[in-house]
């Protein structure tokens, strides 16, 4: 490796071992570089002598006094920490309270919405208005959370089903009325205690039918009332049949 005086600073800056060795070899024959290399080493050696130590017995008591006069860092730190923790705790409590309040409000709303009577829906009659098919109120919706489209579809399907029931019911009632007309002469004469009892029973059944129908007029979708009405009609039919059979006997 060829080294010249111009390379001195570059080699000293890079501190590469091979280049330093080459520089040493060059310095052996170069007074200027030899002097600079020697000065470099002397500076490092003399610098170590610049490290100072001296006794200062009053320094620590002085520092200690100043530190003691300072606000305690641990106190301030933990004060901040406590504030933060308190805030965190309050935040957690607040969040829990808010969540609880939301649950209570939602539950109350749900209960209220379920118990609240739904506004009556007027259904246009599909047949000429009769006692049975006159406009009536629609039963309340057991599931309030539906989209308007779903609600319309559900009501349509219910109306169709109810219409079929009402038509069958109307036909059934008509057939019973025909049966009643057949038994009417016998009952009007009531020439036997048994027929008189049948007449009394039919009056009670007609009264029950009227009462049940009045209730159904308020809620057309009440299946329980419709079943009761059907049972009463079946009893009336059975009674009329018995009256007619009595006549045959």
């Amino acid at each position: 490796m060829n080294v010249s005086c111009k390379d001195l600073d570059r080699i000293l800056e890079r501190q590469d071992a091979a280049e330093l060795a080459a520089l040493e070899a060059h310095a052996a024959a170069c007074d200027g570089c030899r002097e600079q290399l020697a000065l470099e080493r002397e500076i490092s050696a003399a610098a170590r002598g610049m490290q100072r130590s001296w006794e200062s017995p009053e320094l620590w008591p002085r520092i200690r006094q100043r530190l003691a006069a300072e606000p305690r860092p641990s106190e301030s730190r933990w004060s901040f920490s406590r504030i933060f923790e308190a805030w965190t705790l309050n935040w957690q409590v607040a969040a829990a309270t808010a969540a609880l309040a939301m649950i209570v409000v939602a539950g109350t709303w749900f209960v209220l919405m379920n118990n609240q009577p739904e506004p009556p829906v007027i259904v246009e009659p599909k047949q000429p208005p009769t006692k049975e098919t006159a406009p009536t109120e629609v039963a309340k919706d057991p599931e309030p959370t539906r989209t308007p489209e779903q609600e319309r579809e559900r009501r349509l399907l219910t109306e169709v089903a109810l219409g079929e029931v009402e038509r069958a019911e109307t036909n059934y009632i008509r057939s019973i009325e025909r049966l009643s007309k057949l038994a009417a002469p016998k009952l009007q004469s009531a020439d036997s205690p048994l027929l008189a009892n049948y007449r009394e029973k039919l009056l009670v059944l007609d009264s029950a039918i009227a009462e049940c129908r009045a209730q159904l007029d308020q809620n057309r979708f009440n299946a329980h009332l419709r079943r009761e009405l059907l049972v009463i009609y079946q009893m009336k039919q059975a009674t009329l049949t018995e009256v007619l059979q009595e006549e045959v006997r």
Partner: protein
Amino acid sequence: MTALFVENVWSPPLATEMRVENPHDRSALTPASAPAPLPEAGLVEACRRGRLDAFEQLFHLHGPKMKSIALNLMGNPHDAEDAVQEAFLKVYRGLAGFQGQSAFSTWVYRIVVNACYDMRRRGLRQVDTVEPQAEAEEHPLDRASAPAANHPLRLALEKSVTQLSEAQRVVFLLYEVEGFSHAEIGAMLQISEGASKNRLFEAKRELRRLLTAERGTARKATP
């Protein structure tokens, strides 16, 4: 919450010899005998809690080097001691911000260097115009640790060092005088290792130039 506070304040003492009469009266924190030295992590935690005995241990561990750094940066022992005191206050106040990204000692030395810079900027002493040796003679400096204390080259070097730029001087002092590595210096001064090396080279080149010129002048003066 109260229990947490009590637990933090009523932490166990550093050493069994410590006697705490009243935890709120820190003047009562007096060691009955020299406390057992703590590992650095324990020392940091104890200092964080504001324990003066931990700071005393810190002073005994790093105080000598802190004083030496400060003396070479400030130029006289009085200001050096003031800088060390200021550094301890800064350590005390700033320990909550110490996140352990560097060694605790490195962090402490950086604070000393910065304290010296701050004091110089405040102009407490015009150190650049003061002959270091003249002040040092008024202070009981123990030169026993520096066998070549009065060597002509050392005296010339001390004078030449004051003519370096601040950036060059601090790197030279930390590397050549105090023996820190370039990595440690980089951490202290928040510069790269390469920058530390470069500053050292520039400092030594400048010192060579200054000392060569002085030698030339001396040769000319000598008949």
